[in-house]
C-alpha cells in the first residue's frame, strides 16, 4: 500500500522561474490498485513519480509504503519496494550485458549482492526462460544475446519483465509505451495488463493516451498544476469516455482565464 501525505515540491524556489510542481498531494493506493495518471505537460505527473521513487526529495510531506515511512530513504534503498519502467527503452536495461545477465540483476532487486557467488550459475536459467516465453517474443532462445541488439519494443518488454520478476510492492510505469510505434505500444501494454493482473501488482501508470488511461486499470487520476483534480475508480471509471476527460481537461485549462475575464 502506498500512502502520500501533504506532498509539496517547488522548483527554483525564490526565483522568477519558481514553479510549484506538487501542491499538497494526498493519495492512497490500495493493494492491487492499477491506477492510470493523466494530465498535461507540467501537471506534476513525473514529479510525483520521482518523489515516490526517491529521485527527488519533496519539500514537505511523507511517502509511506506498507506502513513504512520511506521519505528519507535514498533511491537505491527504495528499490526493494518499487519496480520501475521508464519512458526511454534504453534506460531500463544494461545494453552491453546479456538478456540473462539483465534478468539476473533484476532478480536481485533490492537484495544484497554477493561478491563470492557467480551471478550466471544456471540456477535460475529455466525460470528466466519460462518468464521470457510469456512475452511471446522468442527472447527465451536468446539468453546470451546482448540487449543492445534488441529493438526498442523488445527492450521495453524485457524491462517490464525485469521490474516484476521479483514482485514489487509498487510498479511505476512512466509513459513506458510513449516511445514505441503504435503496434508495439499496444503489444507492450497488453503484456503490462497481463503481468499486473496475474500477480495483482499495485501499479501507477502515467500515460498521455486518454484511451489507454480509460481502458486500463481500475482507477484514474487526473493532475493539473501540481494537484490531483479528479480521482475516479470502479464502475464510475468504466462509464467514463474520452469526451468526459476532454471536457475535464478543458475546464482546467479555461478555469483561470474565465476567472480573469469575470474578475
Amino acid at each position, binding site marked *: 500500500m502506498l500512502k502520500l501525505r501533504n506532498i509539496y515540491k517547488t522548483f527554483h524556489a525564490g526565483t522568477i522561474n519558481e514553479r510549484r510542481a506538487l501542491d499538497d498531494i494526498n493519495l492512497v493506493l490500495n493493494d492491487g490498485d492499477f491506477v492510470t495518471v493523466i494530465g498535461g505537460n507540467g501537471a506534476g505527473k513525473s514529479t510525483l513519480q520521482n518523489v515516490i521513487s526517491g529521485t527527488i526529495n519533496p519539500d514537505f510531506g511523507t511517502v509511506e509504503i506498507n506502513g513504512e515511512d520511506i521519505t528519507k530513504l535514498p533511491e537505491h534503498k527504495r*528499490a526493494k519496494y518499487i519496480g520501475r519502467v521508464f519512458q526511454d527503452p534504453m534506460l531500463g536495461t544494461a545494453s552491453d550485458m546479456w538478456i540473462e545477465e539483465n534478468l539476473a*540483476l533484476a532478480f536481485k532487486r533490492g537484495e544484497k549482492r554477493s561478491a563470492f557467488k557467480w551471478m550466471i550459475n544456471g540456477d535460475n536459467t529455466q525460470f528466466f526462460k519460462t518468464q521470457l516465453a510469456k512475452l511471446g517474443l522468442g527472447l527465451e532462445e536468446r539468453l546470451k544475446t546482448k540487449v543492445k541488439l534488441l529493438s526498442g519494443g523488445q527492450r521495453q518488454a524485457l524491462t517490464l519483465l525485469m521490474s516484476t520478476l521479483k514482485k514489487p510492492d509498487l510498479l511505476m510505469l512512466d509513459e513506458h509505451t510513449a516511445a514505441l510505434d503504435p503496434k508495439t505500444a499496444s503489444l507492450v501494454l497488453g503484456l503490462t495488463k497481463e503481468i499486473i493482473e496475474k500477480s495483482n501488482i499495485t501499479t501507477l501508470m502515467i500515460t498521455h493516451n486518454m484511451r489507454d488511461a480509460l481502458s486500463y486499470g481500475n482507477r484514474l487520476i487526473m493532475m493539473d498544476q501540481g494537484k490531483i483534480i479528479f480521482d475516479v475508480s470502479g464502475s464510475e471509471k468504466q462509464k467514463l469516455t474520452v469526451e468526459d476527460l476532454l471536457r475535464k481537461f478543458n475546464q482546467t485549462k479555461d478555469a483561470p482565464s474565465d476567472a480573469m475575464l469575470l474578475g
Partner: protein
Amino acid sequence: MTIGSLLGAIGQGFIWGVMVLGIFITYKILNVSDLTVDGSFATGGAVFAITLLAGFNPTFCLLLAMLAGGVCGLVTGILHTKFKIPAILAGILTQLGLYSINLRILGDKANVSISQLNTNITFIAQLLNLAHTRAGMILGIIVSISCVLLLYFLLGTEFGASIRATGNNEKMIRALGVNTDNIKLFGMILSNMLIALSGAMLVQMNKYADVGMGKGAIVYGLASIVIGEVFFRRFSNFGIKLLSSVFGCIVFFIIRAVVINLGLKANDMQLISAIIVVIALAMPIFKENINIQRIGKLNSLNEMKQNKSSDLTVKEKLDKKISSEMGGGIDA
C-alpha cells in the same frame, strides 16, 4: 633489435600491464575517467621504496604500496561521489596533491635508490638463477595474470555484475537497488591499488623510485587499452578484454623499444602514445566520414542509373502507347 631488448620490453609490458588493468576498471568498466593514475603510480613506487629501506619484507612492502594506492583512489572517489566534483577534475586534484605527498614520502628527494636491497625480483633471480630483467618479467607475468584471473572472477559475481552494470546504465542499476556511488568508490580504490602495485613492481625492476615515474602513465594505459582492442575487437567476453589490455601494454612497450631502437629518445614516447590515443579515439569519426562520402558516391551513381532507366521508361511508354494504339486500331 636484440632478443634481449625485446624480452626487456615484454617484461616492462607485464609490469605496466597491472596498471593498465587498473585503468581498465575505471575507464572501460565504470566508464569514468580517473586521472589519479599519474600520482598513485608514483605513490606506490615511493611507499614501496621507503618501506623497503626501512627494512620490511618486500612482499609486505608491495601490500603497503597497494594500500597507499587504495587511499589515493578513496580520496578521488570521495571527491567525485560525495562532493560531486566531475571525475576528471577530482582525479587531477588528487594527482596534483599527490606530487607533494610523494616528495614527502621520498624524504624530499626526487629519487631514491634501492639497488643494494633484496626484492621479490632478486629473490626470483636467485631462485631460478636468472638475470634481473628476466626475473622482473617472471614477476610481472605472475602478478598480471593473477590480477586478470581475480578480476575476471570478481566481475562475474553478483556484486561484480553490478559494477559492470553501473558503467553500462547507472540509472537502471540504481533502480534495481545498487548504491552506484559506493560502487564507483570501490572501483576507484581497486583501480588505484593495482596502479600502485604496478608502480611498486617497476621500482623493483628499475631499482629506484622517482617522483616523476608516473608522468604520462594514464596515456600509456589508454594507449595500451586501445591497442589491445585493435587485436581483440571480435571478443566480447570481459575476461578476454582484461587479457587484451595486458597484451596491448606489451605491444605498446615493444613499439616503444622499436622507436628507441630507431634512434628516437625514450621521452618521444609520450608524444607517440598521445598520437596513438588520439588516432584511436578519432577513428569512429574518420570511419563515419568515409562512410558518408561513400554514400554520396553511391547515391550519385544511383541517380545516374535512374536517369538512364527513366529515359528507357519514356521510350518504353512511347513504344507501349504506339503499340496499344496500333492494337486498338487493329481491334477496331
